[in-house]
């Protein structure tokens, strides 16, 4: 196990490294969204990223599956470096599941078709097998009875759980969560967080951008605090919520807690 000092270093992961960001910069025109980001994530680790809006949290995890293209530095996922090479990008995306704030389910496909689409097209799983897999995933997120419905017929919490099931059906090695409870009504947040807790307990490697401090405290192995495109402070939840060191961290925590 790592020592507390090592937890505070973003470049030291617990266990074998699966995601590696080195000196990553990202610009939107002249605005610098990411400034020299260094982060290593180990297998089975749950890293929660917090910080004020506009701090680059989402941009950072969107760089990891190349929904955004970084301008400088290196990003390596499971030994594959993200470059212009489309095959590398596709391979990283296959191994990386992502869940979005606005669900982004495919409205023209039923729930089960949403889930089986990628396994069938990308992994070439036969239909029968893909359907079974989808039902397993739906059971895991506790809504197997909704399989034949369309996304528009489900509540927000149910839709977000389908989105999680859809990502899981690709059997990814890493899951990225981009503020997935921010668009939900308060009474639906818990059902989604429960699913994520179960997922963390099962040993999934997760990077979670969230404003749910309770979740960060209970589930995170490490908490990363970002502000103005930089990683300001990294540490265990305990360290983070009891004795943060940086002024910006203290200010942020004072505002939200």
């Amino acid at each position: 196990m790592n020592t507390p000092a090592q937890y505070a270093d973003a470049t030291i992961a617990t266990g074998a490294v699966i995601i590696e960001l080195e000196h990553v910069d990202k610009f939107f025109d002249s605005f610098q969204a990411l400034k020299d980001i260094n982060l290593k994530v180990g297998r089975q680790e749950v890293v929660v990223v917090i910080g004020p809006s506009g701090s680059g949290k989402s941009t950072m995890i969107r760089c990891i599956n190349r929904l955004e293209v970084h301008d400088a530095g290196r990003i390596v996922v499971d030994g594959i470096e993200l470059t212009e090479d489309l095959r590398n990008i596709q391979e990283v995306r296959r191994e990386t599941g992502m869940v979005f704030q606005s669900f982004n389910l495919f409205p023209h496909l039923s729930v089960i078709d949403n889930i089986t689409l990628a396994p069938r097209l990308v992994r070439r799983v036969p239909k029968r097998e893909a359907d079974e897999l989808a039902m397993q995933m739906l059971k895991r997120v506790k809504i197997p009875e909704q399989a034949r419905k369309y996304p528009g017929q489900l509540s927000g919490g149910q839709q977000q759980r389908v989105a999680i099931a859809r990502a899981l059906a690709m059997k990814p090695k890493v899951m990225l969560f981009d503020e997935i409870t921010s668009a939900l009504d308060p009474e639906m947040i818990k059902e989604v967080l429960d699913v994520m807790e179960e997922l963390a307990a099962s040993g999934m490697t997760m990077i979670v951008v969230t404003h749910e401090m309770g979740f960060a405290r209970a589930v995170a192995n490490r908490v990363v605090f970002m502000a103005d495109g930089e990683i300001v402070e990294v540490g265990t939840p305990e360290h983070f919520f009891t004795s943060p060191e940086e002024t910006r961290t203290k200010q942020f925590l004072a505002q939200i807690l």
Partner: protein
Amino acid sequence: MTTLADRSPLPTRSRPAAVIWVRRNLLRTKLDVFLTVAFGAVGLLVLFHIFRFVFITARWEIVRVNLKLLLVGRWPVEHLGRIALVMITLGWWGGTIGGLIRAGQLRRGTADFDLRGWAKATDLGRRFGLLTATCLLILALSTTSGPWLLAAGTLTAALIGRWGGSKIRSMPLAPALFRLGGVVLLATPFILFLYLVSAVAFARWEGFLFNLTAAAAGIILCFPLGVLLALGRRSTLPLLRSLSIGYIEFVRGSPLYVLLLLANVSLEFFVPSALAPSKPVRAVITFTLFTAAYLAEIVRGGLQSVPRGQEEAAKALGLSPYRQMTRIVLPQALRNVIPAQIGQFISLFKDTTLAGLALGTFDLLSGGQAITQQDSFRGQGLIVESLVFVGFLFWVGSFTMSRESQRLERKLGVGTR
């Protein structure tokens, strides 16, 4: 104490609802009374004149005598049997597809209504009543029993197809057979086309048959081209993008009539006349190229209406760029612009009449004008009867397309978003 009923603003609450409705909506103020009376009088006068023309003064024998000429032009009589066979097969084909769609909706639980008895009959009447009435009208004008038999045969084939189509899925057939069936179903219109063309070259297709087939061919051919142009216009490759934009803007900036005239005269400059396509073929090519430009803009609107998150989700799942487009973005984009697409197709259907003017082909409209010059009808002012008939056929076709598009839109909207 006053109750709610006592304070009712309507002193006429014991009167029937119809009387209340008339008072409220037609006779509320003096101005309303005046407008109602004035427009009512004008409306009645117009109706009276239409009624008198259609049932009393009009001399429909010009249409009756020339019915075959208007519908299929100078199609050789010995090959009329082929048209009959094609119509019966099309009836079966349409019925089968309808049955398949219905069975699919029932299986997925997206059949939004399950009508029975009287409700079902009125729904069918609303959808196909006008079409049926028009067919009956044409049948009534015909002088032989052939068309009646043909109509009965087509209807029977459609019903058989409808029944069979809804049962196919539950039959214990091998998947390969299903796929073969799908291919046959897709190929049917083309096979039928070849069957007709093998007897009478497309250059000699005339009358309403030309309008219908030119519109159908234009719709089928312009669709892929329009979608490709829309994608080209959004492409990141500068050459492809500027070519698409140039094409779209050029075509949209030119009147269709001018393009048709150009197609008529300019080809001779480039191609030896022996190799140049016939006039009806040139018309279809022009319609296709013209409508594709408009369709491209409609599809572009559809593409813009799909949220960016859809493409991102598809990317994040590892779908290839081609599949992101064909499986996720395009299906939603095309669905979102169904009304505009159908509108464009209706427009194309009516614009096929321009071919007669520009290229001198013999279509329903130019046929309708030509028959008034026949010896037995010349100089009798029968152009009105002829044009009314021509216009009516186009209206029935356009109106039916419009109604079915609204229905399609409603159906596809079920369970989405």
